Structure formats: structure tokens, C-alpha cells
């Protein structure tokens, strides 16, 4: 077992993990953060995309031990005080989801794009989402939603707001016990 300390959606967790534990399984099975789904499990589909130290990653292709000392943001950490980000709102309003399975990854990848390129063209949106598959083939509305979010905000806020998440900050073990405030 290897000791890790990782901040997820604003909360610091200390844990002993097997080195082979994938970040996505750590998030889902140990921390109960099931907002990040496992899709293809082969690094292709992007459903499990989260942010690690400021950049999108496929959490099925990162070991939990590699996130030691790092800061993870999942789709569950985006809303602040229950208020969605412009990107989340745009996905809702533009009907950018059908079954919804790819949605967390799509939002995390789109967030990444808008941070680097606040005013993308639709071609650039498609390019940026090349690693995220929607098997309902709802791409048309996903692209519309990302463009709408970009238009609605200045870009900085579309991509970045409320990285700290909606949970209270604190330090917890995997069992949920807070160890420091």
C-alpha cells in the first residue's frame, strides 16, 4: 500500500492505496464520487475525464498514486452553492445530452478548451472534443452548448469558475472523517 494525499473538489483526502488503483476507481469506489463514470476503460471514450493539476486527463489512465499531492476537480466540483457554471447550464439548455453518460467528460474537456481558447470556432470545439465519444451521436448539440457557453461569458469564467467546488473544504480520510479543518 502507498500513502497518498490528494485534494478532490476542494477536500483533502489521505489514504492508503494499492499502486495499481486507477484514479477513476479511487474517485468512485473509495470517495463515492460517482459523477465521473467509467466508459470504455481503454483510454478512448473520455467519459472519465477529470481535471488533474489544471489539465484534463482520462482518469482511467492515471494511477491514484500519480495524483498524490495533486488537485483533482471532477464534474461534481464545478457548481458553487448549487449554482451551475455557464457550461453546465448551456449543456442543459441546449439539450446537449441524451443518455448523459458522456456528459461529465464532455463538460470537463470543454472546460479545458475554453480556458485555452475562450472563443473557439465550431471546428475548434470538435477538434478539442476528439477524445470524447458520444454514442448517442449528440455532437451537434454538444458543440452548440460549448459555443453558447463561450458566448455567454468572457471565457475565463466559462472555463474556470468555481474550481473549489461546492463541498466544504476540509481534510478527510476515505471513510469521510475530517482530520483537519
Amino acid at each position, binding site marked *: 500500500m502507498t500513502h497518498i494525499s490528494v485534494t478532490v473538489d476542494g477536500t483533502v483526502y489521505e489514504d492508503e492505496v*494499492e499502486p*495499481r488503483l*486507477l484514479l477513476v476507481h479511487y474517485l468512485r469506489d473509495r470517495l463515492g464520487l460517482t459523477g465521473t463514470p467509467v466508459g470504455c476503460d481503454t483510454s478512448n471514450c473520455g467519459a472519465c*475525464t477529470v481535471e488533474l493539476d489544471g489539465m484534463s486527463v482520462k482518469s482511467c*489512465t*492515471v494511477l491514484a498514486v*500519480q495524483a498524490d499531492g495533486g488537485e483533482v476537480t471532477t464534474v461534481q466540483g464545478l457548481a458553487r452553492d448549487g449554482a451551475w457554471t455557464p457550461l453546465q447550464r448551456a449543456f442543459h439548455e441546449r439539450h446537449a445530452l441524451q443518455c448523459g453518460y458522456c456528459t461529465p467528460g464532455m463538460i470537463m*474537456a470543454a472546460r*479545458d478548451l475554453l480556458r485555452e481558447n475562450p472563443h473557439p470556432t465550431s471546428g475548434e470545439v470538435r477538434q478539442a472534443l476528439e*477524445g470524447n465519444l458520444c454514442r448517442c451521436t449528440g455532437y451537434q448539440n454538444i458543440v452548440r452548448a460549448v459555443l453558447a457557453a463561450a458566448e455567454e461569458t468572457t471565457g475565463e469564467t466559462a472555463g474556470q469558475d468555481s474550481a473549489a467546488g461546492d463541498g466544504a473544504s476540509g481534510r478527510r480520510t476515505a471513510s469521510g472523517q475530517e482530520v483537519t479543518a
Partner: protein
Amino acid sequence: MIPPAFDYVRPDTLEEAVRVLAEAGEEAKVLAGGQSLLPLLRLRLAFPELVVDVGRIPGLRGVREDGDTLVIGALTTHHDVVHDPLVRRYAGLLAQATETVADPAVRHRGTLGGSLAHADPAGDLPAVALALDAELVAVGPGGRRSVPAGEFFADYLQTALAPDELLVEVRVPEREGWGFRYEKFHRVSQSWAMVGVAALVRRADGRIAEARIGLTNMGPTPLRATAAEQALAGAADPGAVARAAGSAAEGTRPSRDASASPEYRAHLARVLTERAVLAAAGTG
């Protein structure tokens, strides 16, 4: 899919990493960004006893100049290679090809050194390293040594690196005024190349004076399209480029798999060489 169990160590220094690798011998695997190794572990195609995470060793990340050579740290991520001003200026082929590797999330984690050391014949960057005449610097118990890209790729997933050696940097001769283009053919946007062609072209007096062509997935290792390179010297128009590209598959050993036959791969190599050289001749 759950990877098989392994022991894990994260050395803080290069010396410690080399010592750990020397002790573990063939049973260890080096983990950099993990974008090739983790899929292999998950699919249970690799069963290392020990995974040596070199990802946080200082000094192996970033790009600098050493005289007229570009020195790229092995841990430099694809994302950082794509955006690096020195790479874009002096090794534009590498920046453009790296931008086609996988997808943005993979490029955030995957590293140049990891991609070269993994030596997948369908990987994009080995052929680019070959075309650019890169030197790969390894550190082992005996010290540092430099291996030309042409000698680094030994066989399918095999390199000149010994089990106790670590790739630490990639040295690329700076090239200005050369046109470049990486062309690849794949089924979907983030999948592996069926065939890829890395072209560098130097023009003089309205003709191609010199061309360097690296081929991806036309054999167990990346290859130079030597016959096409020779035929391209002096080419002055698209017809001459097309004729020269006709010899792009000479001397290659393309494999057969679910996505393509050797004959189809040879066809792709010719077509993509023509496209890459024409594009490169226009970007110089």
C-alpha cells in the same frame, strides 16, 4: 479492467532511478506519463513486478537550446512540446506531428520520451525523430550515452535502451527554412496511425534540394523512405513529386492486421508521401 498487482516506487533523483532499475533488471517498467503503459497494464499485456515512476524527477522536463541543438527533456509532455516556441521555430515537424497524437487529455499526460521509449511502430513520434535526425540520450549505471534515432529503434516495441537505462533527453538539430508535414491515415481521429509519413523538405532555386522522409507503421520499427528521398532531390513540380513518392514503400516490411494488408499500407505510404512532400514544399 484492473491492472495486475505491482510494487511501486517513485525515485526523487535520476541516480536513484537508475539504481532501482539496475536492481530490478527485466522485472521493472518505467512509468512516465503512463499513456502507453497504463493501457497495457489494464489489458494485462504487461506484468511488471515493479513500476518505477520517474514522473517527478527534476530536470527532465522542458526545452532548451545547446548551441544549434534543441534539447527536449524526456518528461516534456506532448502538450508542452506542441506549445513550445523553440520547438515550433526549430523543429516545426515535431510540434505539428505531436498535435496529432491521440487527443488533448492524453497529450496532457503523455511524454515525448515515453512515446519514443515505448517504440510502438504505430506511434507517430519515432518516425519524426528519425526524419529530424534526433539523438536520444540515455543515462545508466555507466553514465550517459547518446544514440542516433536511426539506431535507437531496434524492433517491435524494442529499443537500444538497456533495462537499467533511462531516456533523459532528445536532442534535435535546429532546422530553419525547411518545410515540414506529418500526414497520417487512421480510422477515427484519436486512433493509431495505419501509416504515417513525416516529411522535411529543403528547397533551393524552385526545386526540392533535399528531402527527409520518416515512415510510421511500415515495419516493426520506423523507417526512412530512402529511395523516395533520393528521387525527390531535384523535383521541380507536383508530377515529379508524385513519381518520386511512388518509391516510398521500397524496402519496407509493413504488417498485416485487422485494419490493413501490407499492400494497402504500401499504397498509403505512397499516397501520404506525395501529400506530405507537397505540403512540406509549400510551408518552407
